[in-house]
C-alpha cells in the first residue's frame, strides 16, 4: 500500500466518518483492506517535526491484537514521540493513525481513553495527592456517566458505577500485588512501586491498546523481572495489546513478539527478536558491535 495515497485519501476526512464497511464481509468490520481490519493500531507515513528536527519520520507500523510490540532505539530516536502521537499528546504533520479501524489525522487526547488507549509515562505522571487505590480507581474515569449530584447523594447510576470501579480496581491491585500499599499516598512510594501503580491505573480501564513508555527504567533487576511478568499478565489476563518502549534489550528480546527499531526518527528494522538481533543496521545503530551473544548490553 502506498503511504502517500493512503494519507491523501484521508487528508480531508473527518475523525469519525472514515469507517468504511466491507460489503463482502458478513461482519461489519471497518476495513480499508483485509490487513487493516485486523490491526489494533496502524500507522501510515507518520511524520512529526519540532522546528527543523524530524522526531518521527514517515513511520509505518502495524500492531495486531494480542501482540507485545517493542519499539527500541537509541535516545532521541523518536520512541516517546511516537507514543505521544498515538495517545494524542502530539499532532503529526503528516500521516495517519488508525485505531481499531478508526482513522485519525490526529488522535484527540480527550477521547484516547474511550478509544481504548491507556498509557504509562517515562517520567511518572501519577496523582500525588491520591492514594494508590484512588489513583487506580481514577483510571476508570472515562466510564463514569453519573453526575456529581448523583455521586454526592449516592443515588441513580452512581452506586453501581462506584462499586464496579472499586471491584475492578481491586482486581488489578491483586494482580499487580499492590494490596499492602493500597491506602498509601503514591507520593510516598519508592520509584519502582510508583511505576507499578501507573501500570495498574492504565490497566484498570481495560485498554485495547496499552502504551508503556520505559516501564522498567531505573529499576533493579529483580523489579524488572516482576515488571516483565506484569507486562505479560497485562496481555494474557487483561487482553491488552501492548506497545513497549524499553532500553533493557534482555527484557525486550524475552517478552516481545515483534520489535521495531527506530533511529533518527526512521524505522530501520521491524521483525521478530531474532531478525532484529541479527540485523546489521540495528547492530550499527543501537546494539553495538556484535560480540557473541551480548544482546543484554546496549550501546549507551
Amino acid at each position: 500500500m502506498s503511504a502517500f495515497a493512503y494519507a491523501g485519501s484521508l487528508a480531508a476526512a473527518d475523525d469519525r466518518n472514515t469507517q468504511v464497511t466491507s460489503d463482502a464481509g458478513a461482519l461489519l468490520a471497518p476495513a480499508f483492506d483485509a490487513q487493516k481490519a485486523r490491526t489494533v493500531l496502524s500507522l501510515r507515513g507518520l511524520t512529526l517535526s519540532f522546528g527543523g528536527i524530524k522526531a518521527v519520520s514517515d513511520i509505518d507500523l502495524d500492531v495486531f491484537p494480542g501482540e507485545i510490540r517493542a519499539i527500541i532505539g537509541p535516545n532521541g530516536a523518536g520512541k516517546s514521540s511516537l507514543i505521544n502521537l498515538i495517545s494524542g499528546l502530539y499532532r503529526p504533520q503528516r500521516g495517519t493513525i488508525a485505531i481499531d479501524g478508526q482513522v485519525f489525522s490526529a488522535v484527540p487526547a480527550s477521547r484516547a481513553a474511550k478509544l481504548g488507549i491507556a498509557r504509562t509515562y517515562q517520567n511518572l505522571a501519577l496523582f500525588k495527592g491520591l492514594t494508590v487505590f484512588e489513583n487506580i480507581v481514577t483510571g476508570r474515569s472515562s466510564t463514569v456517566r453519573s453526575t456529581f449530584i448523583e455521586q454526592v447523594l449516592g443515588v441513580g447510576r452512581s452506586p453501581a458505577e462506584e462499586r464496579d470501579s472499586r471491584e475492578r480496581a481491586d482486581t488489578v491491585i491483586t494482580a499487580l500485588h499492590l494490596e499492602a500499599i493500597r491506602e498509601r499516598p503514591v507520593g510516598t512510594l519508592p520509584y519502582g512501586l510508583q511505576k507499578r501503580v501507573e501500570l495498574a491505573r492504565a490497566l484498570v480501564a481495560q485498554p485495547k491498546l496499552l502504551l508503556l513508555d520505559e516501564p522498567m527504567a531505573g529499576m533493579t533487576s529483580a523489579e524488572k523481572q516482576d515488571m516483565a511478568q506484569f507486562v505479560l499478565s497485562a496481555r494474557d489476563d487483561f487482553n491488552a495489546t501492548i506497545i513497549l518502549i524499553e532500553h533493557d534489550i534482555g527484557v525486550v528480546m524475552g517478552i516481545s513478539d515483534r520489535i521495531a527499531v527506530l533511529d533518527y526518527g526512521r524505522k530501520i528494522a521491524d521483525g521478530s527478536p531474532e531478525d532484529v538481533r541479527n540485523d546489521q543496521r540495528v547492530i550499527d545503530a543501537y546494539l553495538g558491535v556484535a560480540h557473541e551473544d551480548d544482546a543484554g548490553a546496549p550501546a549507551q
Partner: protein
Amino acid sequence: MTNAYDAQQSRGLLPAWGYLLGIGVVAYGIVPLLASDYVYDAILAPFLALSLAAVGLNLLTGYAGQVSLGSAAFMAVGAFAAYNFNLRIDGLPFILSVLFAGLTAAGFGVVFGLPSLRLKGFYLALSTLAAQFFVEWALTKFDWFSNYNSSGVIDAPPIVIFGVPFSGPSGRYYFALTVVLLLSAFAARLVNTQTGRNFIAVRDNETAARIIGVPVFKTKLLAAAVSSFIIGIAGILWAFAYLRTVEPHGFNLDRSFEILFIIIIGGLATLRGAFLGAALIVVLPLVLSRIGTLLLGGYFNSGVLDMSQRILIGALIIVFLIVEPDGLAALWIRARNRFFGALTSRRPAREVTA
C-alpha cells in the same frame, strides 16, 4: 500532600457518623449553654461564615488546584443576590432566596472560571482579581443592587425559615450553623466521590488526567461552580448573620486574601483545615488584643493591634509554608495520633506500617 492518607486514618479511629454526632452535640447542645451574646456575634458568627467560605475556596484551590483571589466577590454576589431575590420577589421563601443566590454566585463562578481553561498559577490568580474588582465596582456603581439606598449600606432582612424566625444572636447562630454543617457535609461527600478524585487528578497532573478520560474542562468549571455556590452562601451568612448589613465594602480584596490565608494556614485540600484556619483568624485578633493590653496598656491601641495582627499572620503564613505546608490540619492529626498513641499502643503501630 497527605490529605487522602489522613482521611483514611481518621476513619480508622472513629466512624464518620461518630464525628458528626459529636460535632452536632457540641455545636447544638453545649455551645449555647456557654456562649454569651458577645461570643455569638463577635466570634461564632464570623467563624462560621469564614469557615464556609474557606470550605468553598478549598474545593477550588486546595482540591482542584485553581488559585483564586476573588472569593470575596463571590461572597458579595451571594449576599446581594439573596437581598434582591428577597426584596423583589414577593412571597419567595427566604430559603429559596438563599438557594437562588448560591446559584447566581455559581453562575458568576463559571464565567470567571473560564480563564482557568487556558491560564494556570499566577496568571489565573490575576484573572480572578478581575472578578474581585468588577463585582465591587458594579455593586458600588449601580444603585439598583442596593435598592437606591443613599448610603449604599442596607440592613439585612430578618431570617425566617418555614415560618420560624431565626432572630437574636443565638437564632442567627443556629441558622448559620445548620447551613455550614449541611454544606460542609456536601463538600465532604463530594471530595470522596469520583468527581472529587477528578479535582485532585486535574490539580496533580492535567495531561495524565485528560488521557485517562477525566473531562478536564468540565471538572474545572464544576469546581468553580460548586466552590462559588458555597462561597456565595458564606457571603449570605457574613452579611445576614454576622454584619447584619449588606454593603460592597464588607467584601473587599482584604477579605479574599483572608480566606486564602485561612486555607493556607489551615491546610490545603482538607475540610478540617478550613475550620481550624478560620478559628485562628477569628480568635487571633481577640487574643492579641488581650495580650497587648496586658503587656503595653494604653500604648496598644487599635492601630497597633491591626498592624501587629498583620505582621503575625504574615509570619504565620511564612512559617507554615516552610515548616508545615499541610497546615493546622496536619498538626492536628499528628497531635491526635500522638495522644491516641499514648492511650492505646496498638493502633498507631498499625497506622505506621499500613
